[in-house]
């Protein structure tokens, strides 16, 4: 496993960082949570952040914490869908297709919520699950897997996730549609 400094990865995949923070902001706004500070991208750790009001409402916390995961995953799949056929399946020498692949994978790589985002959800989840909140119950495996994957970022789990959904998802969608 080779080591690349985080800031280099962030620069190389900056569209994903910006979209991730934008999604955080978007979900804060629609959930009426105060936002104190936003950084869409910077060279540093973290590469971007949204400082927002905490909440005891699990649904809001889930949406704000996990929202970017779904938004980035969606855009990754869509962009890669536009590129996977020429770039992956047919190997057409098309620079634009490779650009879309880079964009899709950059976005997919930054789908994972930060540990801080997950901690908020993790803290509230047991109590909500005891109250039979369906979202909390469903969230257990999702948040659990994402938590583990987030820790596995040191072994490129984020890139692996981007590639997995950027290639396998369009492939599966395409084969199921034809």
């Amino acid at each position, binding site marked *: 496993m080779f080591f690349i400094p985080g800031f280099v990865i962030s620069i190389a995949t900056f*569209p994903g960082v*910006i*979209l991730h923070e*934008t999604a955080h*902001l978007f979900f*804060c*706004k629609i959930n*009426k*949570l*105060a*936002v*104190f500070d*936003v950084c*869409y991208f910077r060279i540093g750790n973290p590469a971007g952040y949204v400082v*927002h*009001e*905490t909440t005891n409402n699990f649904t809001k916390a889930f949406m704000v914490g996990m929202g970017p995961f779904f938004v980035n995953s969606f*855009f990754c799949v*869509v*962009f890669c*869908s*536009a*590129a996977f*056929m*020429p770039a992956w*399946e*047919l*190997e*057409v*020498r098309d620079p*634009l*297709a490779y650009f*879309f692949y880079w*964009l899709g994978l950059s976005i997919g790589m930054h789908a994972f919520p930060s540990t801080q985002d997950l901690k908020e959800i993790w803290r509230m989840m047991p109590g909500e699950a005891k109250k039979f909140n369906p979202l909390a119950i469903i969230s257990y495996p999702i948040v659990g897997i994402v938590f583990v994957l987030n820790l596995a970022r040191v072994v490129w789990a984020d890139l692996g996730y981007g590639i997995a959904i950027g290639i396998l998802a369009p492939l599966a969608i*395409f*084969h199921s549609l*034809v």
Partner: protein
Amino acid sequence: MLVVSGQPICLPCAEKRAGEAKSAGHNLEFARLIDPTICGLCKTDYGSSELPVIGGMPACSNCAKGLYERPYPGWLKLAMAGLLLLLAGSLWRGVPYFKAGRHLVLAERAMDQGDYKTASVHFDEVLKVSPTEQKVLLMGAKANLMIGNVGGAAKFMERRETYPSSDLFTEVNDLGNRAVDAYKKATEAEKLYKAHDEEGAARLLRQASNEYPQSENFAAAALNLEISVAFNHKDYDSFLRLSQALLDRYPSDPNVVGGVASALACKYAATGDPSYRKQAEEMLEKARLLALGSPEQKAHFEEYAERINYRLQSRVIIDKPEYDRRFRQEAKR
């Protein structure tokens, strides 16, 4: 101002006490001393009115509005609009690739079922987007080779300069080599045919057909030449057998049906067995009906039907040049 253990403390004193506590091996928890009547953001003093606390900080209504309705920066809106436009553009631009991908999936399915003709039709659509992926090209070439289309296979193979070795490559390469070798034999056969060596040409074409059985053209050409050789040798049993073999391949070709009628007429002329005559007349009628669809076919049918009818009526077997010499030269004059 900060607060520790309920007591207010200024920042320099707090830093001093924190340092002392750390040296003593424990931590002190400081909190910011908040005046609920002063907005934490715009610092406006609202006198005795306590402000609502948002995220642990008093905020006036003006500032609170900003916190809840934080605008997206202009550059971000532009970037997002650009992203969506790019997305739409990429999907629109990807339409030919999606179509090619669909044909690729259908071609692979046809290949799995051994339907190489259908597969080659789909692969031709894939070729339109100029793929270079090895497996796609090799499968496209294989589909074409399996239906005897060497030229079509070459179009796929030409898309790459090198092919790393694989089982599929070995298979396609072997098939291609056999096809090329068969074509060489067919070219030699053509030369022999032009030199009026029909037997030699038929033998070479049969070898070509055996070597590359996927080529319908080689098999048909070999059969046609063998039929001609059998007729020339007055071997009417072989003439009939080979004509029927050709009919099995092309049951709706009026010329092939006419060829069987011709062979049956020869058998009648040679044996006098009326069952051959009856069968010949039936085949001739079938050929007539099949030829109705095209003026060229109809004209061709009328030409050979006249000769076959002559054979049936006279029981004399002569070839076309002789028939033309005897009966048609007169007509021309």
